[in-house]
């Protein structure tokens, strides 16, 4: 059995032993339901892209709470010491932690499929757009978790970890809010998360967009591993 999977499974089990996951899941579904009712029934439309945009904003706030614990708590309690002296690499450990959180997030995202399901009962639903929007949402979540685990690797204070990850995710979300021209503008548009999500909400799954999210995830996981490794030297 792979070591990262051993770690991921423990993480998954522990997540659902604390009330935090249930509280967040409750908030997630409650607010998503509210958005759903207000947007879709109010506008009399079955296009779910507006709902997905709102879920992404909701996720900005929820993802940092899902990841703040991951490495910061291990550092505070010292259990990190037993993990880093066990026969597994820091990369396997961080990967395991990340996958565990990713599984939890997958539960959140799958539960939100309730809304498209309801819509398809009430009227006609474009399943293509829904599927690509869902994928976009899931990838966005996966990226914010990677950013969150990085923030969690920097400190032993969970609150600080949550705030740092919120700030970094928000920055990625808001890069295009500043007026620029030329290559800076091109760069900022490329880095912008909403820009990369546009295609998904239109029903298009672009290779370029996939590459963007996957490299974001691996990039942040990589520097998290480096941070775990390096902080022992200080």
């Amino acid at each position, binding site marked *: *059995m792979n*070591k990262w999977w*051993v*770690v991921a499974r*423990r993480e998954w*089990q*522990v997540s659902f*032993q*604390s009330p935090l996951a249930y509280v967040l899941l409750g908030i997630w579904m409650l607010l998503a339901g509210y958005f759903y009712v207000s947007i879709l029934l109010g506008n009399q439309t079955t296009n779910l892209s507006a709902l997905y945009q709102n879920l992404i904003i909701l996720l900005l706030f929820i993802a940092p709470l899902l990841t703040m614990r991951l490495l910061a708590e291990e550092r505070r*309690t*010292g*259990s*990190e*010491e*037993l*993990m*880093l*002296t*066990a*026969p*597994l*690499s820091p990369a396997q450990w961080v990967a395991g932690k990340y996958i565990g959180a990713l599984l939890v997030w997958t539960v959140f995202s799958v539960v939100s499929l309730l809304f498209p399901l309801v819509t398809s009962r009430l009227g006609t639903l474009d399943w293509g757009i829904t599927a690509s929007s869902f994928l976009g949402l899931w990838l966005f979540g996966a990226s914010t978790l990677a950013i969150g685990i990085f923030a969690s690797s920097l400190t032993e204070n969970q609150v600080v970890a949550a705030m740092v990850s919120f700030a970094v995710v928000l920055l990625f979300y808001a890069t295009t809010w500043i007026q620029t021209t030329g290559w800076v503008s091109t760069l900022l548009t490329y880095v912008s998360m909403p820009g990369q999500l546009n295609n998904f909400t239109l029903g298009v799954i672009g290779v370029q967009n996939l590459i963007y999210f996957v490299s974001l995830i691996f990039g942040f996981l990589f520097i998290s591993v480096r941070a775990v490794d390096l902080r*022992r*030297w200080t």
Partner: protein
Amino acid sequence: MDSVIDVIDVTKRYGPSRGVQGVSFSVRRGEVLGLLGPNGAGKTTTLRVITGFLPANGGRVLVEGHDIWEEPYEVRRRIGYLPDNPPLYPEMTVYEYLNFMGQLHELPAARRGVRIDEVAERLQLGDVLGRLIGRLSRGYRQRVGLAQAVLHEPPVLICDEPTVGLDPRQIAEMRELIRSFGQEHAVIFSSHILHEVRLLCSEIVIIHRGQVVTQGSPQDLTERLHGGTTQWLVRAKGPGDAVAAALRSVPGVHAVQEQPSPEGEAETAGVVRLLVEAGSTGGEDLADRLFGALAAGGWPARELRQLETSLEDVFLELTAAEQASSTTVAEPAHAKAGPQRGGGRR
């Protein structure tokens, strides 16, 4: 090379002055090495370098010939580690936790079950396997920590202050466990209790302010620390001068002096309190001879015991010895004046 673990000139700096410097020792299978030092001496730091948690600034650590920095994986498989105040996962049950650690240490499923049963039996954890670790008492948590350290049958077992915070019965149990593990593993453990280290170890390394002050077998150290003498406290009912003279004539006794009673304690009327300095050999016999001398004089003995040297005294002696040797030709610095400081425990 038959040693299981070799620590060679390890140095770890946290800043310009703190950390540890030039620590070297090796431990064979079936040996227990005690790392002894007061708070802040560098015990935890040394153990963390050995386990590979902290990178050293210099020196090497070899476990069965594998270097901790060149082959970290090979070394980690061979080490069982019980950190100070063992950081376990409070939200898991004991069984889940041991199972998890067993998986990380690559025990196959069947073997894992067998080992968890064995270890639970040996550490008396059978009744709490299904309990959450966070709800366990300190003593049980310490045992869970030890269980996870020995689960994969590592050749090297490293324990950081394993008896701190336990009650006397648990301390005795923990010491017994360490002793028994020492018969099949190479064990390194740290402590700030001289008595405990002397009891369990075949080799002692005394560390102070990050430096190794002295190392050797308990016998070596006793000789070195006391200049080959032991000290005894004798309280008997009788005339001070006569009793002292009688004891002085007992073979093996070097000196006898009257000792004031400790502050706040009034000595019973008619009872003398004497400090006897004697050779370090023949401990029990000497006690018998001292008793004999008292009995022969018809002086009822109220108390007769060997005084232990506390770690504090050891350091006073050691630093005194250092200073003496730097100015004059070294002379064993064992001439201790005045009452025992924190000496024999009652």
